[in-house]
């Protein structure tokens, strides 16, 4: 592109925004319109093939009925008739959605997932903010090192890292050994199969997704604003809440969304670390699919989750956009 420094944050919303803005500024592709088209077409095609088409397939299945057949659900369209007269019948089964709304169990599962994801997201924010702040304030080489340390865990499989936590938290694991050795507790604590372990697992796993957008927001912060505030007699705490926090808000929103959305549908962490009474929608979906063998119902649960998640997020993005243009 140009001599501008490359965008440092990972695949975050902020980074994507920055790239689009950069492209708009340099009008690199304006002269060759087909080139521009090709550049837009690639991500669009990607979205269409890997998001929109699967979404439509899932939506289609959610409107079918279960059947003892291959595949285990009915077809929506059916040909009836012969050479002279032919009908196509379309049969849509809304029963799955009605059942979802009717049975409080699913509502409980959605709410409990949202609660767990919400608490974990908040904890992640509390942990990530000081890290991002430190990164943004440190000089070149330290910053690169800190950034590498945040990204480094991604080099190991997510599943292995969750398993490692099982080893750390178990009864004769690392934490209990240290606590017992120091004489802080007499008996090993039960930490595995608790909600605490789930929160810990989510905070640990998703931390980089929060740190990176926060860092990219804090890094852009104009230090002269803080100096001016200090000159005018504002105390550091006041300056933080009046200047730093509001200006890093886009990073906070982006980070929270990146943690919250996958955390709601999380299956592996509660399955491995959580207690059996941790009710999450990922588990309910698994049960519908594998235990009840009800693919249409499982699809309806998935579509519902998407609607519950996507609508509020679109509203947030919308109001943000308005604020920025105002």
């Amino acid at each position, binding site marked *: 592109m140009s001599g501008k420094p490359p965008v440092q944050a990972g695949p975050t919303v902020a980074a994507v925004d920055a790239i689009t803005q950069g492209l708009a500024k340099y009008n690199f592709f304006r002269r060759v319109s087909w080139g521009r088209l090709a550049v837009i077409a690639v991500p669009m095609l990607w979205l269409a093939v890997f998001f929109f088409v699967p979404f439509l397939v899932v939506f289609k299945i959610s409107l079918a009925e*279960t059947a*003892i*057949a*291959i*595949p*285990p659900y009915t077809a929506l369209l059916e040909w009836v008739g012969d050479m002279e007269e032919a009908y196509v019948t379309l049969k849509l089964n809304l029963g799955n959605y009605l059942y979802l709304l009717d049975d409080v*169990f699913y509502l409980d599962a959605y709410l409990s997932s949202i609660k767990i994801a919400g608490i974990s997201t908040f904890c992640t924010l509390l942990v990530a903010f000081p890290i991002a702040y430190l990164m943004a304030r440190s000089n070149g080489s330290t910053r690169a090192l800190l950034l590498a340390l945040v990204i480094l865990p991604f080099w190991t499989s997510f599943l292995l890292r969750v398993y490692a936590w099982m080893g750390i938290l*178990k*009864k*004769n694991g690392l934490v209990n050994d240290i606590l017992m050795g120091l004489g802080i507790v007499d008996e090993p604590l039960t930490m*595995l*199969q608790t909600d605490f372990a789930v929160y810990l697992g989510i905070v640990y796993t998703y931390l980089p997704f929060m740190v990176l957008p926060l860092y990219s927001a804090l890094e852009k912060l104009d230090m002269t604003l803080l100096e001016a505030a200090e000159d005018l007699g504002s105390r550091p705490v006041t300056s933080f809440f009046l200047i730093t926090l509001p200006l890093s808000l886009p990073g906070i929103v982006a980070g929270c969304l990146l943690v919250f959305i996958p955390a709601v549908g999380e299956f592996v962490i509660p*399955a*491995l670390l959580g*207690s*059996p*009474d*941790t*009710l999450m929608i990922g588990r*309910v979906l698994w*049960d*519908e*699919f*594998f*235990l*009840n*063998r*009800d693919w249409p119902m499982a699809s309806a649960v998935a579509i519902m989750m998407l609607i519950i998640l996507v609508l509020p997020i679109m509203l947030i993005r919308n109001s943000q956009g308005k604020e920025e243009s105002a």
Partner: protein
Amino acid sequence: MQKKTLGIAAAVALSLSASAMAEQKVVNFYNWSDYMDPALIPQFEKETGIKVNLDYYDSNEVLEAKLMTGGSGYDVVVPTGSFLERQAQAGVYMEIDRGKLSNLGNIDQVLATKISGHDPDNRHNVPYAWGTIGLGYNEAMIKERLGDMPVDSLDLIFKPEVAAKLADCGIALLDSPAEMMAIALNYLGLDPNSEKKSDLKKATALMSAARPSYRYFNSSKYISDLANGEVCLAVGYNGDVLQAASRAEEAGQGISVKYAIPTEGTVAWFDLLAIPADAPHPEEAHQLIDFLLRAESGAGIANYVFYAVANSAAEPLLLDEVKNDPGIYPTEKVKANLFTQNAHTSKYDRILTRAWTNIKTGR
């Protein structure tokens, strides 16, 4: 760029036709992980010239999802009885051509009769291995808490006052509603395959009462947890518990894991060889199945994986430690109390899953 793509396409086409010309016979075998004597497959390949492509799964659900989507490409699969029962109804499997199997006579007829409860006349299956669901326990930890109380009883799981004594060292149950509920129903003296709502209610009440003493519900985690003392009692599959026992022995930390079949009776499960209806190589599939039915093959499998095979001819070739282990080959008296868990209607599955979720989450 375009030229390069064409080049690749041509290369792929060439290699495809080349392999077709050579006519390398293959068979795609989809089996459970760690469920085969590793010496057998090379022997089969050497004898027949058929190349075996092995692929592994670790749960019936994964296998079912692949089969129900259709076009899995597998020639031989190993579902458990109750799963095969429902899958056969959906038309997933082809009928086994018995004329092509020369070693059919090796099959244990008593067990074959039991299996026909899943598959009338055993039209779609040939038995592979079988076992029980029972109690895996840490000898020292249980003794410390229960004294001399007999361990081969489901009282340990279902009597709240007994289970409570073991809560601190950890009880794990299988996360398998159909099998666990069948065991609970049988414990209550009811038909283990009952689909009556009133029966389900009684079984749910039984498990809910002891629920506070259960650490977790999982169908594989207990193997390592029993071995390292994280849990002291688990309802599990016999082969998995024996695996935990040998792991504990290897670790050498003085943990001794044992397996007991409850005297109240329990589920006997059967893993069956079957051929998907759309298998690309049915001929080779029959050849592989016939090979696995040989007495030597059956004994090789049992001696290696520590599960019993439904192969009478293999019995003289078994190692003593396998043949004489009542956890692998139960005594006749214990055998009489074993029952199969049959597939449920989808309507009942839904009620059962909900009851199970309620037990687990303590609702």
